[in-house]
């Protein structure tokens, strides 16, 4: 089982976002893996492992389109346990979801993975598009917003649970396919490769941290840098960002001292009751 995990670096979502002159100022931010992509790396690792440890079968390749510094986040994924990394030079200003998806298509065509596992959404642009676009360009099936995945023992299909508006939807998809993961994919029993683990498989309830040993090992793993031109992806952006602004601020509220006061205010002042 060879799995490609596209990863994006995002600015730390906990830091206050600075917006001035129609642009987001990111000079002082710290960068991290998009949380959903960290979950995707964890998912891919679980799909190539026996939960009891030791036994591992398959390869996990992480790939990002980003500036040179993105190597730091790719090394983090390697330290978690991914086998190889690919960094295609790029910059958010010269990318849109289409460009990212077409670059990834070129990588899929050269790497020939059995499965692409990626985040459902990058938490900076909040697009929630790339996985679906990639599947569309490849003509592959897509399994989006996954809260669980079980790979069949023959490696030819997967049974998945998707978080949808009305509950949980179960589907079967043929491989190769594109899968995008939601938050709950890192739950204890959410991921299993039937060829490697029985139904009792159970992991930690969260994504793994890189161990010291992992960090040392990551330094020796391959991180290949590619120029986008070599992948033959060019043309105009399909979506251009015009400007960013601060969202309208809410006016300051008041503290109430008691339930009676609260109900009174909702009744007579806010008139919502």
């Amino acid at each position, binding site marked *: 089982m060879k799995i490609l995990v596209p990863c994006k670096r995002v600015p730390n*979502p906990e830091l206050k976002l600075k917006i001035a002159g129609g642009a987001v100022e990111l000079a002082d931010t710290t960068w991290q893996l998009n949380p959903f992509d960290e979950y995707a790396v964890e998912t891919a690792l679980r799909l190539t492992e026996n939960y009891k440890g030791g036994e591992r079968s398959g390869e996990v390749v992480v790939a990002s389109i980003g500036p040179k510094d993105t190597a730091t986040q790719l090394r983090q994924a390697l330290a978690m346990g991914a086998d190889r990394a690919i960094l295609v030079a790029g910059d958010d200003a010269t990318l849109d979801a289409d460009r990212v998806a077409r670059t990834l298509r070129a990588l899929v065509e050269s790497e020939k993975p059995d499965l692409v596992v990626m985040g459902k959404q990058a938490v900076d642009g909040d697009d929630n598009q790339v996985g*679906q676009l990639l599947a569309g360009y490849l003509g592959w099936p897509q399994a989006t917003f996954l809260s669980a995945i079980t790979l069949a023992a023959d490696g030819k299909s997967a049974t998945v649970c998707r978080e949808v508006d009305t509950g949980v939807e*179960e589907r*079967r998809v043929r491989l190769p*396919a594109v899968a995008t993961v939601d*938050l709950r994919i890192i739950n204890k029993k959410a991921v299993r490769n039937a060829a490697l683990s029985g139904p009792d498989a159970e992991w930690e309830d969260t994504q793994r941290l890189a161990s010291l040993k992992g960090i040392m090992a990551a330094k020796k793993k391959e991180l290949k840098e590619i120029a986008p031109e070599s992948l033959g992806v060019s043309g105009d952006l399909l979506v251009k960002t015009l400007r960013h602004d601060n*969202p309208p601020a*809410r006016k300051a509220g008041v503290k109430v001292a008691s339930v009676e006061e*609260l109900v009174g205010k909702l009744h007579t002042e*806010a008139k919502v009751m």
Partner: protein
Amino acid sequence: MAATLVLLETTATNLRSSSLPAVTAARELAKHHGGQVVGVVIGAGVGSAAADAARFVDKVLCFDHPGLASALAETWAPLLAAAVKEGGASALVASATSIGKDVLPRAAALLGAGMASDVVKVLSAKSFRRPTYAGNAITDVEVTTAVVVCTARQTEFAAAAPAASPGAVENRTVAAVGALGSEFVALHATQSARPDLAEARVVVSGGRGMKDKAGFKVLEELTDLLGGALGASRAACDAGMAPNDLQVGQTGKVVAPDLYFAVALSGAIQHLAGMKSSKVIVAINKDPEAPIFQVADYGLVATWEATLPALIAEMKKLKAG
């Protein structure tokens, strides 16, 4: 001839109300693009649903085939793309439901069209306003392709009213359905008699501080007295206190009710992203420094154990008259 296509989701017999905001967005787009607003209904045995949907648009294209019963992007996206091409449409829109989010980007890929996700405003024929960075920025984007694709945030577009006269239904023959090996197995639906989160006028959400399912039961009593929908933070969903599809936030449901109660939840940015457009926000939290108080119109610093029973009693009194 120009046209704006809108994906209309249906039950077996009716248009789903979650698609009505998309109709409004489509009408706004059609003002810029010219031409008709054309609904697209896809499914198995959806003839009467298509007729119901036709009340809201100039025309409905109905793709009815046993192989289209479940909303698979693999089968629905090619139909949408073909309908855009054949009809010479210049815009394709859907509500940002889990189906819209799954299917529309794939249709955009097949069309080679640019797509704007989760838009809150149509600015012109090709430009849109949308929240980014968990709602910490508002971003204007422009689609540069001849065809524009977008999903509309349900809470930001009013539910469309029926058109002056119903449109015609045009049945389209579906030659073959190729699901590429994708197969629907089952839907484990969350059963609830409460109103839909995205449409409720009152939403009561609980967080990790509710401690367990028993704590949530108390919240549910308040919710039902208010005739509202129940919501939850990620932490509460992860802990199994509430089903996952009740998660409100950046990556869950987006709500904008008249009244939002945030009880024993801290107000992480990812949560705020899903509720800060609510008209009136009430926060109950024992920690006076909790970030939720920064967006709350009315804040009560107290434990839920000390406040909810009294609040429930007050509600009952009000109801009794």
